[in-house]
């Protein structure tokens, strides 16, 4: 457990929505709409714009717009900085919209990079339950 372990992984979630790409694009790029399905945010549709996504659990994601092609592609960084290496996350989220016969296919790819064992957790008074609860909160409670 002395050497740092790095892993790169990617998650892909796809779904076809019976709605036009234009409408889907608004839900992905207008802050008040993003807030309704994703998280509170100060997003702006400009490459290089830095913004934050604030989760209900109190965590904040640091993001930066990397790519925008209206109604087609949206990409931004999705980083979570935490003193606890297990929660640290550096990733890039890319949404791709493709019109279909009955609506729009939305593809979300999150390419993640996480560094493990950078620093041992000091204190460690948290129990297993708290540990997994936090993870749960971080990753699913938002939904």
């Amino acid at each position, binding site marked *: *457990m*002395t050497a740092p*372990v790095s*892993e790169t*992984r*990617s*998650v892909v*979630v796809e*779904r076809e*929505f019976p*709605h*036009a790409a234009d*409408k*889907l694009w*608004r*839900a992905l790029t207008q802050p008040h*709409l993003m807030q*309704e*399905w*994703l998280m509170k945010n100060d997003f702006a549709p400009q490459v290089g714009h830095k913004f934050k996504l604030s989760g209900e659990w109190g965590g904040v994601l640091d993001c930066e717009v990397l790519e925008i092609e209206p109604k087609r592609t949206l990409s931004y960084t999705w980083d979570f900085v935490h003193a*606890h*290496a*297990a929660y640290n*996350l550096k990733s890039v989220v890319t949404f791709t919209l493709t019109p279909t016969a009955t609506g729009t296919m*939305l593809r*979300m790819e*999150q390419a*993640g990079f*996480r560094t*493990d*064992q950078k*620093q*041992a*957790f000091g*204190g*460690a*008074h*948290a*129990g*297993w339950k708290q*540990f997994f609860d936090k*993870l749960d909160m971080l*990753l*699913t409670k*938002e*939904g």
Partner: protein
Amino acid sequence: MSKVHDTLFRTLSDPTRRAIFERLCREGEKTVGALTAKAGVSQPVVSKHLGVLKQAGLVRGRHQGRETHYSAQLGALAPLIDWTSQMAGFWEAKFDKLEDLLKRMDQ
């Protein structure tokens, strides 16, 4: 399976050792004596288990006077967290919310 996974699983596969680790997670820092009181095994056995846990990075010892206080190192468990399935679940849930929102939105 990676060597790191292998070490972690092997270390936590022993029930007595796992119980010691879980107790440190739940109750915080403890001395060997305090751990032995409830472990159901002798102090040398507890010390041996602590040694293995330390080797795996799961436990850290802090010296204070003549005693060593042991604490759990949760960060060492990080390789066991299946990040991809957690995130896929997160996004599926988000897409559900997005679907609801799209239904409510004007064209």
